[in-house]
């Protein structure tokens, strides 16, 4: 288990050191609150984001505190939300826009891929696009095919984007602040099943609250979690797990249930990737399991597996295992047959150990 007490916090004032129990929703809101307070160029908008505060309540209270000019509702047009944000960023603002569900980003693809990601490159630095695009992702909430997807691999494939996915409130706030401050466009994916508590894949058990968890103790003020550093979520000696988001918690459950001493690496930022932490761990354990909720084929796990074999091939004792969502649309009634829960992850751990 990660010990955040030992992690360096880029604290600037006493408020950063005073912690409060927060859900991931509250932590994300606090990140935007801190940044809107510090930088008048930070504006927040998206569908239902203003007066109502967002369908997941992440932006609740920001309009009341900072006014309609800086936190407002947008028309139902993801292309328009991102397109206007690119223009605002080119002007000099730091927009933080919300796509209500990651499943809805597709209409904004041209503005993300051809515009935001390439403004700096195509203009040789004349124009830049320092915007953050937040989007809740992942399943486990009976959301069906249009409220459950994990589209991270679409973004990691695009040069010029940073793709981030936190697994807990502490990281969520620090990573979101770092994303808003970053001068590159950042895709910030929020595993919605983790909004209110850690989730280990045992959907039939009572929901656990973040208030009972160390990673739910969040500094009130400004701090950052670096965008280029993975976290060793659980140190271990038997095998290395490369994962992120909800699957960090599922992998931990699988380790506990199988008794296999897995070293779980929470990537936190998917791209650009902290390859050094990965390579060091795999060279130590000699075994590697890649776990994500997104569909398997051409998923980000394929890139991870390729990198591990490229950099650690002669240290590997077993084939690299991949556990992922099936290559089907995210189903509704069959959600738990689709979701890669602790049993499937644990089985992969065993295969990696027995090979």
């Amino acid at each position, binding site marked *: 288990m990660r010990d955040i007490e030992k992690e360096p916090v880029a604290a600037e004032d006493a408020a950063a050191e005073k912690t409060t129990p927060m859900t991931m929703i509250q932590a994300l809101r606090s990140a935007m609150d801190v940044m809107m307070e510090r930088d008048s160029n930070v*504006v927040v908008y998206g569908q239902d984001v203003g007066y109502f505060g967002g369908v997941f309540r992440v932006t609740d209270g920001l309009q009341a505190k900072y006014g309609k*000019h*800086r936190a407002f509702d*947008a*028309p139902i*047009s993801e*292309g*328009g939300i991102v*397109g*206007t*944000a*690119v*223009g*605002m960023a*080119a*002007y*000099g*603002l730091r*927009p933080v826009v919300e796509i209500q569900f990651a499943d809805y980003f597709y*209409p904004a693809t*041209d*503005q993300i891929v*051809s*515009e935001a990601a390439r*403004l*700096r*490159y*195509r*203009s*040789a*630095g*004349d*124009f*830049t696009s320092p915007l953050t695009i937040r989007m809740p992702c992942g399943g486990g909430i009976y959301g069906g095919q249009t409220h459950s997807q994990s589209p991270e691999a679409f973004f990691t494939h695009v*040069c*010029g984007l*940073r793709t981030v996915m936190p697994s807990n409130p502490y990281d969520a706030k620090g990573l979101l602040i770092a994303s808003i401050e*970053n*001068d*590159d466009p950042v895709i910030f994916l929020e595993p919605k099943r983790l909004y209110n508590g850690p989730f280990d894949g045992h959907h039939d058990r009572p929901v656990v609250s973040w208030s009972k968890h160390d990673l739910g103790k969040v500094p009130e003020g400004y701090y950052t979690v670096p965008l*280029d550093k993975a976290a060793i979520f659980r140190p271990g000696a038997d095998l290395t797990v490369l994962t992120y988001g909800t699957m960090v918690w599922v992998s931990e459950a699988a380790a506990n249930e199988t008794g296999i001493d897995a070293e779980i690496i929470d990537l936190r930022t998917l791209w*650009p*990737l902290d*390859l050094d932490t990965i390579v060091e761990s795999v060279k130590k354990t000699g075994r590697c399991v890649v776990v994500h909720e997104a569909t398997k084929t051409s998923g980000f796990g394929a890139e991870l597996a390729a990198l591990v074999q490229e950099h650690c091939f002669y240290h590997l004792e077993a084939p690299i295992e991949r556990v992922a969502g099936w290559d089907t649309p995210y189903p509704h009634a069959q959600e738990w047959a689709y979701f890669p829960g602790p049993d499937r992850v644990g089985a992969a751990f065993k295969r990696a150990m027995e090979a």
Partner: protein
Amino acid sequence: MSQSQPLSLHVPEPTGRPGCKTDFSYLGVNPAGIVPRPPVDVRYQDTADIASSLIRVLDDNDDAVGPWAPELDKETLLHGLRTMMKTRIFDARMVIGQRQKKMSFYMTSLGEEAIGTAHALALKDGDMCFPTYRQQSLLMARQYPMVEMICQLLSNERDPLKGRQLPVMYSSKKDGFFTISGNLATQIPQAVGWAMASAIKGDTKIASGWIGDGATAESDFHTGLTFAHVYRAPVILNVVNNQWAISSFQAIAGGESVTFAARGVGAGIASLRVDGNDFLAVYAASCWAAERARNNLGPTLIEWVTYRAGPHSTSDDPSRYRPADEWTYFPLGDPIGRLRRHLVKKGWWSDAEQEALQAELEAEVLAAQKEAEQYGTLIDGRVPSAASMFEDVYKEMPEHLRRQRQELGV
């Protein structure tokens, strides 16, 4: 109920094809001076008639007539003529450069020079244009150095964009010229967003977004209209209707029996339809729209009716799909000729001065080309380094790009 007939699909056709003369009556050209000039705080509904008419100032006798006729001094008009001529001469030289393989590609703005030239006069320093690839006259009007333009076209060692962009995809923030994208229509919501940012910050700057008739079919155009209307963004949205999107006639983009300006009215935006080959009308309409934006009255959509006299690009041969001499019959004429005749009629210009200016500008363009070619062309290999290809993907170069650069051995 009437008896059902077999259905048939309507596919619009242009009124002229190779071998037959075009019927331009579809343009609905009305005489100069008859369209009223409403106050800048007009209700959008009250622009519906204007959006289906054609604002024109220069009449068939080369006089400036009607309520839109602007008060412009001799110096400004001559500056306009000079900029339009320089743009045309520049375009012609660069086409030759492309034929000589000094650059990979070029796009002229032949016949459309008045639009960017006169529009730029209505803007101020700090305002931002979000152009398409055919608004080089905006840069010319803002006195952007021709040598830098040509270095970009040649993708040479002094290319300000480091060889990353197709020729004509210029970028100059200091001249209010947003980096051009080959993806059509994306710049419309961006222009609206830039304008929203100016309003959020309580600034005084306005934005001007550009699009062609063909690309108005993209969702980004309609999205941009919605956002501009919703937030009353201080933006001018310019639709340059030059009749052709490569080989597709403007009716394929939705211009049959309805104007592009009318789409603005439908979105709740005050809209004008203007003779884009009439320098004075372009200036007057642009000033009207800019004044609306600067007074927090919101966006204006302007359809500029013009004609793409040249090919879409150096890769295109328009005689395959339209009459080769179609421009000769285009009822709105040539913008340079019209302004020149107006100046002559006012006694401010002569044929001798015209000839002298032509020669002077040709020499100026040639000198700029010669200077730019000193820094390399696409064929002599003096292009930006391969190592620079890995820069500016991110602000700081990440490790994986360092490794790939190393792998390339540069």
